[in-house]
């Protein structure tokens, strides 16, 4: 080790410090040690496995009715009992995760893509564009999702696609607002000025320069939104605007059975409700963990 062979006027450049973790490595490391995140992930993965493979391991066909055994309380051969058509509630709860776990994430992805693009544009351009679009978004956010859903269903008819579009578009403004505030901070940094001094186009500056630096808040917001999306999907199904029969969807099952709670047939509703609650809690735990990992 000698310093004499380095260029005359300058110190030898140091070897890049590869021992340190990359920022993403840091986040993964912190996630892997977060009890909150791991618990949430466990719950979420459980439901994902049910959605993907539930059909193969449930004891009964969730759609097969068996009128003779209708409304039997939980017992050894029907763990969660049966509903009014004699369908096995346990099988229905397990397989019922499928629709909600398709619709809610797709809606969230749609919201993220639309919201990110919108947020980048209004945050980057500021000025009149920002003023007008932000006011419109605020007005949009003031309308309850259910009203939007009603209007959309009248216009488009009931389908999973409608639910995805309705939830996606009503969540997009919220994500746009988060992205906008992150972009406002980024656009003041000198690398954006440096891009202008290369005559880079606005698209390049927004999507290649700024976007990679605002991924963390987007990721946090997306996981939080997923929890709300699950809740919204269940609500819409419950109200009959969402997923349609004969799907064993949770919200739908609660909707068609809740009249029977008064008759003492609690099991037809309770397990679906618990399923919704556990999934929302699981996703929120994941969101908490992700938030913590990025904001440590």
């Amino acid at each position, binding site marked *: *080790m*000698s*310093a*004499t062979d*380095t*260029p*005359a*006027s*300058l*110190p*030898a*450049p*140091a*070897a*890049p*410090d*590869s*021992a*340190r973790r*990359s*920022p993403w490595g840091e986040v993964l490391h912190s996630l892997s040690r977060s009890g909150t995140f791991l618990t949430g992930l466990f719950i979420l993965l459980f439901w994902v496995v049910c959605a993907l493979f539930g059909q193969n391991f449930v004891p009964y066909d969730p759609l097969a009715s068996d009128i003779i055994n209708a409304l039997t309380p939980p017992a050894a051969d029907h763990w969660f009992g049966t509903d009014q058509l004699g369908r096995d509630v346990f099988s229905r709860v397990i397989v019922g995760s499928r629709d909600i776990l398709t619709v809610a994430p797709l809606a969230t992805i749609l919201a993220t893509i639309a919201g990110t693009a919108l947020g980048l544009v209004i945050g980057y351009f500021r000025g009149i564009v920002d003023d007008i679009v932000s006011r419109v978004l605020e007005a949009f956010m003031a309308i309850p999702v259910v009203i939007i859903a009603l209007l959309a269903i009248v216009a488009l008819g009931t389908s999973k696609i409608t639910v995805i579009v309705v939830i996606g578009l009503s969540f997009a403004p919220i994500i746009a607002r988060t992205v906008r505030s992150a972009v406002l901070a980024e656009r003041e*940094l*000198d*690398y954006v*000025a*440096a891009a*202008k*001094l*290369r*005559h*880079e186009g606005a698209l390049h500056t927004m999507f290649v*320069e700024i976007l*990679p*630096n605002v991924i963390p808040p987007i990721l946090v917001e997306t996981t939080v939104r997923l929890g709300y999306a699950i809740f919204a999907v269940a609500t819409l199904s419950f109200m009959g605007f969402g997923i349609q029969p004969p799907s064993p969807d949770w919200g739908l099952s609660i909707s068609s059975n809740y009249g029977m709670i008064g008759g003492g047939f609690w099991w037809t509703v309770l397990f679906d409700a618990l399923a919704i609650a556990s999934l929302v809690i699981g996703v929120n735990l994941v969101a908490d963990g992700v938030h913590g990992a990025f904001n440590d």
Partner: protein
Amino acid sequence: MTEPSHAANSLELKDLSVAYRVGRRNRAVLRNVNLTIKAGEAYGLVGESGCGKSTVALSVVRYLPRNGSITGGSIALDGKDVMKLDSEALRRARADSVSMVYQDPGKALNPSLRIGRQLTEIFELSGITGQAATDKATAMLNRVRISDPVSVMQRYPHQLSGGMQQRVAIAMALANDPSMLILDEPTTGLDATVEAEVLDLIGQLRRELSASILFISHNLAVVSNMCDRVGVLYAGMLVEEGWTKDVFNDPRHPYTVALLRCLPRGGQRKDQGRLDTIPGFLPGIGANIVGCAFADRCALATERCRTEPPPLYDLGDGRLSRCHYHDNAQALPRTTPADVPAAPPKHAPPVLQVEGLNKTYASHGHPLRAVKDVSVSLRPGETLGLVGESGSGKTTFARLLLGLVAPDDGGSIELEGKKLAPRLASRTEDQVKAVQIVFQNPDSALNRSHSIRHILSRALKRLGGLSGKTLDTRLEELVRSVRLTDRHLAVKPRQLSGGLKQRVAIARAFAGDPRIVVCDEPTSALDVSVQAAILNLLADLQSRQDVSYIFISHDLGVVRYLSDKIAVLYLGRIMEFGPSEAVFSGPHHPYTEALLSAVPKLDRTESSRIRLDGEIPSAANPPTGCVFHTRCPRKIGAICETQEPQLTEAQPGHTIGCHIPYAELARLQAPKITAAEPA
């Protein structure tokens, strides 16, 4: 309160070792540091960042971060062992006998409490409440020379300037009449004029108070002015200690020798040789050091230095040096050639001609003239230094040139004889690549998501119009021209040190063969040895490529080293413009005179100091007449308040905007000039 028993030594560190736990391993940060500060003494601790200076301060008050621990040795404050104090006794010690002032006063004060509340709180802690506490707080503010303490007490921190905030922080630190005052880079973020003010204040307080001072700074000149004794820290070890005058005039450790040589001194200029640098890098924290820690970077090192750790040799009269060859330390050879071929004087037409440039912002409905009637010209291969306090419009001027901000109608910017459009978007590709910038903070200037290869390739593609093979070849050249290597290309900016990042930023600015590069405080975030290397690089690139620089810096020594011309700005107006030597040697504008006088000198040569009173006025409401008259120490009378002086040519190419005639300025400043320029 009981009278604290004053021991002879305010602070005594014995074999202090501190480690930080990183990645499940304890990494040594301080290694057996022995240090004694006598009662009433001011002790300076210097060294580059990462040497462990702040760790010393934090250990004294046992305020180390969570992963830090004291692994050996002892700390005695006023004779009491800090390590043995229980939490209550430690709290009392912190409240009664030791105080700390941090670098950033804005962060040390609570933004949502009034100054008065924050000050009285300290007295309430010792049982003084109500009016008595308010009175004491007012007295404290008077003590730190705040002229209107009653109104300052009513204000929030953000309503005070940086200098005032630091005074308040000092007042708070002194409130409990500590026996030990720790100042951790107390003037680093401040303007030179404000720094001078704060240092004067600390100097005066020293005479009034009995407190001992531990003064931590990377600025050797500041330490040399403030401290009785100085210790040089390197890789967590004290490598040299002694009386300030002795250490700086007759250093006995090669590290001290090298550190002192990195600074542009005595008006050194780029055509009189490159600055010396320190090759290599500081050992990382926790590095396993065999032999002398500095051996790898020391041109004097022998086999003995690499194998046998040098003890702290006692050289008598309080001098200590951790070097086997301390008698010979000053023989350290220079790492750069002492002289470089001077560029022949050019008579080329100017590359940049700025005429009557104005920029007015609207501030709460009032016009705010950030830049007013600025005219400068610059030849190829020359550097224009922009000098002035913060808020003087330096950065706005640079942004106008770059087109990032559009100027008011009327003025003109000509590049090589062709008019530049005011807005960047309407400039041609050639004009865009001709004017580039190196920003102050490379962390902000380099996109943290992109690799160095991406950053530079993109610049070469857009600015150089290159692609494919030619781009790769040029990339390699570019990287080599700023003395980086291929292996730096794959990494992200965060994996590089500050100096290396700044090289990437310089490479990017040079990607399209620019005619003018704006350097906005490019070295202010760097250590002196790295600063020297960057300044050398800029000087080399300039002599090779005939590029012109607009160089902005608050460090006048650095500006002087690199600049051929100087423009002194105050409130967006040019006060003085001329060849660098003429502006620095004088006679100069009273404002320039004050700026130069504020710079702490390493050799303590200043005789009469000029201090600017008060704040820089708001640009939204500038003073009438000469804008400088409210602070001018050489104000001559009513004419200064009513009539704005014109820039008049004092000598060919040297203009000064002052009512005092040039000959009179020369007479007034004459004794000062001889004092400021020792042979």
